[in-house]
């Protein structure tokens, strides 16, 4: 499949924005809209790391391991472009005294959903990518109350791998095909016992539950 360029405009930008809309569609479906920026970045990493489980390429198979957790400046740029296009809307914007945004949340709009639907109908590949990302983000949202930067740093198979320290690039598909998070999802999937069946969506949900603190997730 494809490696997507990080140019701010052009073909790569269009695919990234489609990718973001697919994620936000899952957030919408899970009733978790609007999603805050911190969780958006965690969710984007989650979706990238489990993409292989759905047999799609990750948008970005690397992440810089740092104390503040996964961060995707390029996606944040594209998210704001989607707001300008009215495919996403801003909610709960809090501006700090010095003028920068202290807190912001995002939610997909009706136009965004319609746009995603049209893009998904362009090809089977696009449909597979959209469905897979919606599934991954839905799984993340169900457990998001318990997922934090700390739980990701200490429990996620890729990021918590002791061979990576803060400041290192965690590579799970760029130059190195080894993806411990996808392996962990595969392990969960193969561990499910009858009468429950091996199902990627359910395995990804279970992995998200594993990432979350148990006390935060239960109703």
């Amino acid at each position, binding site marked *: 499949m494809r490696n997507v360029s990080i140019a701010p405009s052009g073909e790569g930008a269009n695919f990234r924005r489609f990718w973001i809309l697919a994620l936000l569609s899952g957030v919408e479906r899970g009733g978790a809209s609007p999603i805050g920026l911190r969780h958006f970045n965690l969710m984007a990493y989650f979706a990238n790391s489990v993409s292989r489980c759905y047999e799609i390429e990750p948008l970005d198979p690397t992440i810089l391991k740092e104390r503040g957790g996964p961060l995707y400046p390029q996606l944040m740029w594209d998210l704001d472009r989607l707001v300008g296009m009215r495919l996403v809307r801003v909610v709960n914007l809090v501006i700090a005294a010095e003028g920068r945004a202290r807190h912001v949340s995002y939610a997909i709009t009706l136009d965004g959903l319609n746009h995603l639907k049209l893009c998904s109908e362009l090809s089977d590949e696009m449909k597979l990518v959209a469905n897979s990302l919606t599934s991954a983000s839905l799984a993340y949202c*169900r457990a998001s*109350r318990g997922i934090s930067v700390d739980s990701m740093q200490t*429990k996620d198979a890729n990021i918590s791998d002791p061979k990576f320290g803060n400041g290192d690039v965690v590579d799970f598909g760029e130059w190195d095909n080894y993806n411990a998070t996808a392996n962990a999802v595969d392990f969960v999937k193969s561990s499910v016992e009858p009468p429950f069946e091996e199902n990627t969506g359910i395995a990804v949900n279970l992995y998200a539950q594993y990432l979350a603190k148990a006390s935060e997730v239960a109703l």
Partner: protein
Amino acid sequence: MTTFRAKTLGGANFSELAKVSARAFQFVDENDIAPFEPDWHEVFDRWGAGAAPVVQGSLVLIFSDTAQVIGSSLGCETVYQFGMKPQIEPGVYLVSKSATGNAWRIPGTCADHQENCLKIVASGLAGQSAVVLGVRPGHFLVLPAGIEGTSWSVNLNCLSSTLDDAILTEHLNVFAIENLNSAETRGDLWIDAPNWIPKEQAERTIQKLLLVGLRTALTKHLVIPEPSTPIGRLDLLVLSKDPTDPDRYVLELKAVRSHTSTGTVVTPSSMVTHLSDGVDQADQYRKKVGGKAAYLCVYDMRRVKGGDVIEKTKPRCATADVLLRVFDIHNNSKTARKVAATV
């Protein structure tokens, strides 16, 4: 189970991952047809059960995959982590199928159920699946086809979380009488009801509706559609949400009909064979999954009910220790009402 070497799991905790895989029962497939996911049952219990329910007055939940989008267009207030709230104001809320999400409260809704229904219709949401709490004490009402369709009432104050033949049979009876014979369902089952010509997929439709019905009624149990076994797929499997409760119930569903969907007459011998296959399937699946009981649920869509077809199936069921349950499906409201009145 595939053998995984610990080093392929990076920094993940192997034993925690193994433990979490035992909770597969918590999740249903994303394309599941039930109007809401099983995690909502705990919320309904918390809000509606007991002598002094939390919810006082009409609380209507409208389920949608685009609750936020619709809510923002209606000027709704967002209620974050709705399912976790200990107290809830009556009114109408847009929610997702999962209970972990937020809710959007439709403005102007209140504790009066009639007022809420009018608001729902005015908002263009009359056809969305809904659940109602606070109207019938100790119960929640499920309206799978929307606020103007059939409602199924579920008792939250069950004395026991265990399931036995009497309770399961009662639920199957209620489903057949109140839901399968409703005017709304009739349209899904018949091509030409006056001439007793059913739709080709009538049996499948019954299975789907029963899945939804049992899911909403059996709040302490899971109902799994078509789980696969080494010998094939059974129709419905019912098991407890409590992993220490080993009881499982196998349900095999068969519809008997006078005509095929093209109007061809169905012979009694082929009906007997159809049901005989059902007995064998129920028996074999029960043995394969370690079931406590196996049921053959027969949905009689013929003009003349009962008769030899059913009588010839009874001894076969007795021999195989399969519980036979027969439910009549009527082709018009008048007959259905008459029969319901005699029950």
